[in-house]
């Protein structure tokens, strides 16, 4: 009998619990020490209805929609089921009742009490009581004879007594149990059970066995035991068919015996080994619900007793209908059936598997919306019974009986539909909800919990009120409103409270706005929706409110009550949120299938520039889940949470895709726990949520406390160092997207935070780089370097060269070069702007340039400019190609690559002259998508540090678009990364000056102020080819006077390669020993050329930079330190 043990779930507080099914088997009903009776629509019900019956509930019984409970106020009460209305007190004792039970017809209730008495009461007339006296200790349990003649009870005095109810006399008494003085001290609860139907046997748990006593003769006929069952049996329960007996022990084992064969057919163990104190069979016999003394509820599903084995059901029914059948005959019958069963079990087993699959699905179903759950469950149950049912029909003569048997399953009437359609079943669409609210059927609930405050609704009998409370009391004082209109939806912002109620037959659906921030005296307005149109969802933006209605419309009001917009939605709204000027709407796109929801999402932007940013694209949800929260981060990035606990955030940098940023389930301790999200912050990264133990929603009391969860992108291998850093990096990138969004939509941004995040990202990149270096993954290093800003690339180069990876270092310098190219590409445009002719001190150049850059983006550029840029691009490409081809030709020789570098190094000065170039490093614009911001930010950090040094240079920054712009003096980059800036600068040189290459050659000795530091630093990169080139350049240019600079290099490369190996070697040697004289000369030559052709300002700047360079040394040390630290 394979059955599935579902995971336990938290139901009540610790202490004695009991469980039963309702007559239809649709609900599991439990009671516990907390005095509540909970009505579960299945084990996965996360929001069970509950009825409070007293301080503690000791026992419960349910029949004919009457719920009888024994509570701590010494009474036995009736409540209606499932409404939970009190229906009077059945009887009272002098102390609490310990066990209550119905007779088979539900007309009487028996209750045993700690005051030694057992009472039998007519349900219809509680004055008709029979008291059974005779126990000498608290009564442990009572059970009715299904034929209503007798009653059995067990007591702490050790006796199990059978009473004649009519005569109120003891028939027989067995001293079977250990004596104790109180129920709480009893080793076993000794729940007796009388076989239903034939009423043949009374099952009495005695120690670790279950003894069966025969009715009338009261003989002990058999004992059910199991070798593996060593602990005391606490409770027993007969299957509805009467053939199986389930027992739960103190040690948590659950056994099911086939009574006829006395074989143990099922053994399960409580997952934590807690004492099982309640046990109940599903009316169909396919499930057993059990509870333990820790207040948890569990379920064994898929018992074969009757769902998949109709023979038994059928025979049971036969037995019931023919009560005259004698003992032997019954067992004979059953034996026959069992044989059949065994024959059939093989054929059954394949069927079993798909069913198990269904059960799994069922399991997942608890993630489906509450509204959808019941129906889909029924469908699935149905499938179970149908699968087996149809199989039965073919095989068994009892087919008809079997069907009637399964009629107990509530959804049986759907059976005939099955052959008609076997495809995937549509999922019931999830209902509209307000994110941050708890379900409307609760009497005390949250109507809204968001970052502004809390709106609570108290819907008692005596009054219906709404409490509005603000997290920050500075916004507004708390409000208390009477809810005469019956509002069910609310939203709260810094400006107003928006409430809405659904329409009734007489009254239209109303929208009420408490505009508390209004400066006039009217702080409230109300709008009636057209007849027949109901509010489904609402939200408050900044200065406006939006309402989604049942007529598939979105109505937008201003906060003062002016109707502003109206538009239609393609489907039923699920929920809607607003932030600032953005409106995010999620709606049903189409029916979903197999538990999936098909949701669409629209993101609209109001305000001055109205636009639709997301045009109804599908909203990705986890498998078989539904939307459970929707909102914006505090910074305005849309995000949502699905019922699987996965938090997803809009990734604006990758075309409005959704990135999962957290799975709240991973932090849950048990499966039934969850986190109820109330807000998300990107800076600092915080997921604010309320931990809910054993439920999906928090109760209003005690007041829940907000917890903060960290984000974690589900990257691969996050247990490794590499994975961790990658995760951090991706997360940091994702969570800094909002900066660019905010700045582009005209909001202020927290520059400090932004630069911090940028710094963190670069730091992480550097760490990852170092790690890959260690792992000898040079290609990966290069990939990482491509993500870095220029100044970090220079650090990387240093790292690579220190760890003796020259090849890598050279590749990196290529990248650095490219990066500077990119920066410079943008630069000429700027220079062409008005400022181009103006002399400027080096410090200010950058800010102007930045401004120029902004404007150049926004406005048309002059043709001339464009042309020039094109030219430059063309040339640049050429150079790139040249260097690349060289590299390819001789990938291993340093010399092959270095010439490009060497060629460029001498021009270092020029590069420094314009600090903007160096600083405006940024990432490759293609990668970041927001180069402008990045650059500015970059500038900011560095400039702040070095500000005191920059002196007068700082004056002109104010004219930039973004006020954070600070003067752009020299940066670390320059000082630490001489080589780097050299290449960069040289690169620029090539662009600007290639056409003047010839001129350059002619002006060898133009004086330029060169800092000695430069010279020494520039030595390093020199290679053999460089030296050779110096020597031979003239001859090359002489040979080919019309060659451009790049071509000269190409040509030189070719010639150099044709040299003999020894020659080349000697050049290399020379390069190593260094040739200062040569170097200096060359430097001057180049620098002079530059000075001549570039604006005079640059020459000046050179001086500046030279001076600054020295002053900046400390910061270079700093950066080196930071680097080491990494």
């Amino acid at each position, binding site marked *: 009998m394979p059955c599935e043990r579902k995971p336990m779930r938290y139901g009540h507080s610790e202490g004695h619990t009991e469980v039963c099914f309702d007559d239809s088997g649709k609900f599991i009903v439990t009671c516990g020490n907390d005095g509540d009776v909970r009505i579960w629509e299945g084990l996965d019900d996360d929001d069970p209805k509950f009825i409070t019956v007293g301080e503690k509930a000791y026992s419960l019984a349910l029949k004919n929609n009457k719920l009888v409970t024994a509570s701590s106020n010494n009474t036995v009460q009736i409540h209606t089921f499932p409404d939970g209305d009190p229906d009077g007190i059945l009887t009272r004792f002098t102390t609490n009742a310990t066990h209550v039970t119905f007779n088979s017809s539900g007309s009487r209730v028996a209750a045993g009490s700690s005051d030694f008495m057992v009472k039998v009461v007519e349900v219809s007339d509680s004055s008709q009581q029979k008291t059974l006296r005779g126990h000498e200790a608290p009564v442990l349990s009572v059970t009715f004879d299904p034929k209503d003649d007798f009653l059995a009870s067990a007591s702490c005095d050790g006796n199990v007594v059978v009473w004649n109810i009519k005569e109120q006399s003891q028939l027989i008494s067995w001293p079977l149990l250990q004596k104790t003085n109180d129920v709480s001290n009893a080793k076993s609860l000794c729940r007796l059970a009388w076989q239903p139907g034939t009423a043949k046997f009374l099952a009495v748990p005695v120690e670790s066995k279950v003894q069966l006593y025969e009715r009338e003769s009261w003989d002990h006929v058999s004992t059910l035991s199991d070798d593996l069952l060593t602990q005391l049996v606490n409770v027993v329960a007969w299957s509805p068919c009467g053939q199986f007996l389930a027992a739960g022990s103190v040690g948590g084992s659950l056994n099911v015996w086939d009574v006829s064969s006395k074989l143990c057919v099922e053994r399960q163990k409580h997952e934590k080994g807690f004492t099982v104190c309640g046990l109940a069979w599903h009316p169909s016999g396919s499930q057993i619900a059990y509870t333990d003394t820790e207040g948890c509820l569990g379920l064994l599903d898929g018992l074969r007793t009757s769902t998949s084995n109709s023979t038994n059901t059928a025979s049971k029914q036969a037995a019931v209908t023919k009560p005259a059948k004698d003992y032997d005959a019954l067992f004979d019958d059953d034996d026959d059936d069992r044989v059949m069963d065994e024959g059939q079990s093989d054929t059954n087993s394949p069927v079993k598997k798909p069913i198990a699959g269904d059960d799994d699905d069922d399991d997942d179903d608890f993630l489906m919306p509450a509204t959808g759950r019941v129906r889909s469950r029924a469908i699935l149950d149905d499938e179970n019974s149908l699968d087996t049912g149809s199989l039965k029909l073919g095989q068994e003569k009892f087919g008809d009986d079997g069907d009637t048997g399964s009629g107990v399953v509530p959804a049986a009437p759907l059976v005939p539909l099955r052959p008609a359609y076997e495809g995937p079943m549509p999922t019931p669409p999830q209902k509209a909800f307000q994110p941050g609210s708890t379900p409307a059927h609760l009497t005390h609930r949250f109507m809204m919990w968001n*970052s502004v*405050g809390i709106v609570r609704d108290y819907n008692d009998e005596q009054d219906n009120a709404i409490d509005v409370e*603000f*997290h*920050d*009391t*500075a916004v507004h004082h708390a409000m208390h409103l009477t809810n005469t209109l019956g509002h069910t939806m609310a939203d709260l912002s810094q400006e107003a409270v928006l409430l809405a109620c659904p329409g009734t037959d007489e009254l239209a659906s109303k929208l009420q706005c408490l505009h508390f921030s209004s400066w006039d005296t009217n702080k409230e307005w109300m709008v009636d929706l057209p007849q027949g149109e109901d509010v489904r969802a609402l939200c408050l933006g900044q200065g406006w409110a939006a309402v989604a209605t049942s007529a598939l419309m979105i109505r937008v009001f201003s906060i003062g009550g002016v109707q502003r917009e109206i538009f239609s939605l393609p489907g039923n709204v699920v929920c809607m949120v607003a932030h600032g000027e953005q409106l995010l709407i999620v709606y049903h796109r189409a029916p979903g299938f197999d538990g999936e929801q098909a949701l669409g999402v629209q993101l609209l932007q109001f305000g001055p520039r109205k636009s639709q940013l997301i045009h109804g694209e599908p909203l990705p949800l986890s498998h078989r889940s539904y939307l459970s929260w929707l909102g914006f981060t505090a910074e305005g990035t849309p995000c949502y949470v699905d019922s699987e606990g996965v938090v997803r955030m809009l990734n604006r940098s990758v075309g409005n895709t959704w990135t999962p940023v957290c799975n709240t389930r991973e932090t849950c301790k048990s499966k039934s726990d969850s986190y109820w999200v109330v807000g998300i912050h990107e800076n600092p990264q*915080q997921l*604010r949520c309320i931990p809910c133990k054993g439920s999906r929603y928090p109760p209003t*009391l*005690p*007041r829940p*406390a*907000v*917890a*903060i969860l960290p984000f974690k992108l589900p990257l691969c291998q996050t247990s490794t160092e590499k994975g961790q850093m990658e995760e951090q990096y991706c997360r940091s990138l994702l969570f800094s997207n909002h900066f660019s969004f905010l700045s582009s939509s005209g909001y202020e941004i927290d520059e400090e935070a932004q630069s911090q995040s940028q710094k963190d990202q670069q730091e992480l990149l550097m760490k990852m780089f170092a790690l890959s270096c260690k792992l000898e993954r040079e290609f990966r290093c290069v990939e990482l370097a491509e993500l870095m800003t220029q100044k970090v690339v220079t650090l990387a180069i240093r790292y690579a060269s220190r760890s003796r990876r020259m090849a890598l270092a050279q590749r990196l310098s290529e990248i650095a070069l490219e990066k500077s190219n990119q920066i410079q590409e943008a630069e000429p445009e700027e220079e062409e702007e008005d400022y181009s002719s103006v002399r400027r001190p080096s410090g200010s150049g950058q800010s102007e340039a930045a401004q120029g850059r902004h404007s150049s983006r926004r406005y048309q550029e002059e043709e001339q400019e464009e042309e020039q840029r094109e030219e430059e691009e063309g040339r640049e490409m050429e150079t790139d190609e040249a260097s690349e081809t060289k590299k390819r030709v001789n990938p291993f020789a340093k010399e092959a690559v270095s010439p490009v570098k060497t060629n460029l190094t001498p021009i270092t000065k020029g590069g420094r002259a314009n600090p903007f170039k160096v600083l405006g490093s940024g990432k490759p614009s293609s990668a970041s998508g927001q180069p402008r911001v990045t650059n500015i930010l970059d500038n900011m950090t560095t400039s702040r540090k070095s500000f005191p040094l920059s002196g007068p240079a700082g004056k002109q920054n104010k004219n930039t678009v973004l006020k954070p712009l600070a003067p752009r003096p020299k940066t670390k980059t320059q000082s630490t990364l001489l080589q780097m800036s050299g290449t960069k600068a040289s690169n620029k040189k090539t662009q600007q000056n290639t056409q003047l290459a010839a001129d350059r050659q002619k002006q060898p000795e133009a004086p330029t102020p060169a800092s000695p530091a430069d010279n020494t630093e520039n030595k390093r990169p020199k290679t053999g080819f460089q030296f050779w080139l110096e020597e031979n350049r003239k001859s090359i240019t002489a040979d080919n006077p019309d060659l451009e600079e790049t071509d000269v290099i190409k040509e030189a490369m070719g010639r150099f390669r044709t040299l003999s190996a020894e020659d080349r070697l000697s050049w290399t040697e020379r390069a190593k020993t260094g040739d200062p004289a040569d170097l200096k000369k060359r430097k001057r030559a180049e620098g002079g050329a530059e000075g001549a052709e570039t604006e005079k300002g640059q020459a000046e700047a050179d001086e500046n930079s030279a001076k600054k360079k020295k002053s900046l040394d400390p910061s270079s040390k700093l950066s080196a330190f930071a680097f080491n630290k990494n």
Partner: protein
Amino acid sequence: MDASEVEFLAEKETVKIIPNFSLDKIYLIGGDLGPFNPGLPVDVPVWLALNLKQRQKCRIVPPAWMDVDKLEEMRDLERKEDTFTPVPSPYYMELTKLLLNFASDNIPKADEIRTLVKDIWDTRIAKLRLSADSFISQLEAHAKLDNLTLMEINTIRVFLLDSLNCLYKLRSNQHPGSSKGQFADF
């Protein structure tokens, strides 16, 4: 040492509050506090929590141990054991007193908690007296008591030391020779 001094020390313990105002980090000699975000729990020392509470600037989240079930369990254990059981906080008594006096509206079942803590306190003090009694009556030279809180030590210190001094004087008068060595430790 005065009880108020012990209480003063207890005020250094941190407690979670939910502020209803927003404030950046504040930098104090004892460390940084905050930042305070409305609605978001933050750890602050008790003295600040009470100050804010009195100005109605926050709600105090009672410490995890300040819970009826946990305290009941502790009380039972305390009663069962002969020795002192570990207490949830070295300042449990002071904190209970302070928080319940100033923030009883934020603490569910405040009265029960008050009673339970008082019970635990009484049990422990009784044990302390008992051990002091047996210490003296058995003429022990030293004894070891674990898990005592500062407040508890403080309550018995004055009395115990004074009475030991007294006893010493009396005994040294009675048996000038013999008892000297025994009480030398004091």
